[in-house]
């Protein structure tokens, strides 16, 4: 029981640390949100009229008072579930803004993660089972090479070839002409827009699962119980699937839970390259505009997701593998 209490205590303590960091980091840097916003609206080759800055500052009510009093206000409103109003999307609240962007990211990145997890684990398991064959080499070497390519670069090439060159896929946005709803035309519109971002992610994400699964499984295949199973004359396939793969899957599954928590991280990369209307682009925009309320809420959302996934993974692990309670206490 102590194990679980510790984990939950850590969860809360970390949450506080993260909330505080979220508060501090944007504020320690120079720059005034009103000026940034006007500058970004006008472009750098524009003279910003002092009266406009004055008006916008009045509108946004840019925080004043000492850092400490701002901090207390911030904590207080968080407790009340009030994340404030976005500067960029004034007068919409941070919650409204995020709720518009969240579904896009969830759908795109979650589907990609699931596919790449399944593909990665299966390929990794086979590579381990067929160790030192040509299949193994092709999978490990191939996935290492494509998986370490710079996604920015991959996106550039994909866009250049398939969007600008061949014109097979649109280059930007989440959908275009169709009216959102559960219709085939809308689904088609969404899928064609999601294709290139998804492919980019699918090129770079499976490598981790492949190598992780392969290594753990190779390790397991050398274990005594596998040797025993083989000695007992069980068929190879049974040994591979029932024993080695199943045991090797455990770390991968907890890893997957954690990875799901960091969906936003993956989203930032792809969404900005393809102008996808999700959380990642929103985050880029929030950084650019010094939109503290929005940035804080996004960081908080991500962290809470990661923390929660970690907590679940830890608890799961504690249940599944009692030894972990000792080692990782």
């Amino acid at each position, binding site marked *: 029981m102590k194990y679980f209490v510790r984990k939950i205590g*850590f969860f809360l*303590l*970390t949450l506080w*640390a*993260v909330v505080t*960091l979220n508060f501090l*980091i944007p504020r320690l*840097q*120079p*720059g005034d949100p009103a000026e940034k916003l006007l500058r970004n609206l006008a472009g750098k080759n524009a003279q910003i009229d002092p009266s406009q800055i004055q008006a916008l500052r009045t509108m946004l009510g840019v925080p004043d008072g000492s850092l400490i009093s701002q901090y207390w206000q911030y904590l207080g409103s968080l407790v009340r579930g009030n994340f404030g109003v976005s500067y960029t999307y004034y007068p919409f609240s941070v919650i409204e803004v995020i709720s518009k962007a969240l579904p896009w990211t969830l759908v795109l990145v979650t589907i990609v993660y699931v596919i*790449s997890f399944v593909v990665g684990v299966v390929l990794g398991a086979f590579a381990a089972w067929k160790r030192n064959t040509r299949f193994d080499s092709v999978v*490990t*070497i191939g996935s*290492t*090479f494509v998986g*370490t*390519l*710079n996604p*920015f*670069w991959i996106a*550039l*090439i994909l866009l*250049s070839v398939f969007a*600008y060159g061949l014109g097979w896929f649109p280059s930007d946005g989440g959908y275009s002409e169709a009216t959102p709803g559960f219709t085939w035309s809308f689904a088609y519109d969404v899928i064609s827009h999601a294709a290139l971002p998804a492919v980019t992610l699918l090129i770079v*994400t499976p*490598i*981790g699962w492949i*190598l*992780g699964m392969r*290594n*753990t499984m*190779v*390790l397991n295949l*050398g274990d005594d119980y596998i040797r025993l199973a083989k000695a007992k004359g069980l068929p190879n396939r049974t040994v591979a699937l029932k024993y080695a793969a199943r045991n090797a899957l*455990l*770390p*991968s599954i907890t*890893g*997957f839970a*954690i*990875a799901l928590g*960091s*969906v*936003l*991280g*993956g989203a930032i990369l792809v969404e900005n390259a393809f102008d996808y209307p999700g959380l990642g682009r929103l985050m*880029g925009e929030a*950084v650019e505009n010094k939109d503290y309320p929005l940035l804080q809420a996004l*960081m908080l959302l*991500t*962290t809470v997701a*990661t*923390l929660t996934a*970690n907590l679940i993974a830890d608890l799961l692990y504690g249940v599944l*593998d009692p*030894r*972990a309670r*000792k*080692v*990782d206490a």
Partner: protein
Amino acid sequence: MSTTPGVPPTGDDAIASSGKAAVGLVEDQLEESSKPQQWYAVIWSSGKARVGVIILAVYILVALFAPLIAPYSPTDSSFLPLSPASGDHLLGTTTAGTDVFSQLIYGSRVSLLVGLLGGVIATIIALIIGMISGYTEGTIIDDILSFFTNTALVIPTLPLIITLVAYSEVRGIALIVGVIAITSWAGAARAKRAQIITLRNRDFVTAARFSGEGNLRIIFREILPNMSSLVVAGFVGAATGAIGAEAGLAALGLGDNNAVSWGTMLYQSNAQGALQQGLYLWVVVPGLVLGILITAMTFINFGVDLLSNPHLRED
């Protein structure tokens, strides 16, 4: 591992995520030390690692002798802009009139430097925190250090790096290295903590303790040598991460724009619409060169994995 979205445990992190594996590994490794096979020999025994080492060596030579190899200064913008590839300009010139090939050659310096420094700093931080934390397991010191480690692990690294760099006043190599290092040590620290916990109850440590050796001496004299493979793996991993992260940041326009690196080349070429203008080499080559370097580093890490995981050896 959770520092990076979507990338599950490999290398040292895999050990951390599986207590079972960690225990097994350490035992294997200790067995191994009885019939000493030098670590470089183990790494070299892997075909992939051999290829990786050779490629890396080529990159290092290119970086060292860049002034001899590159025909021009990477910042010399006196050439005719937008020249196609030719004998004078193997990869053509940029829109600003600099030689793409020379930039490519000099770019290797930034990548390798960032990899070296980022890897060293992250490894040192991970070592110090991981070892102290592991050795003092169960005490308040461990609790505090573990708290830092775990917090650093769950804070979303990528948004954090972007925020830090976007708001920093001067974007130099030092900033990039620093930011990468302080956001990337946690996974390795946790792995080292896990391993030291299993090591510190070993007989030779107990023996040392009874003979009255100090804690620091035990940690660094008795235990550390037994963790060399984990340290090497951590270093290679961190260096690889740092190289990729620098290129990624630079490609976003958040790099050190005073330095010529492959990432800044990607950023500039994209911002200048190089593909639209038909300057394919300017875009394609830096990305490929970067990919090959990181692949080579990853291959080396395959070899390093063999150190800690003899079962993986290609027999």
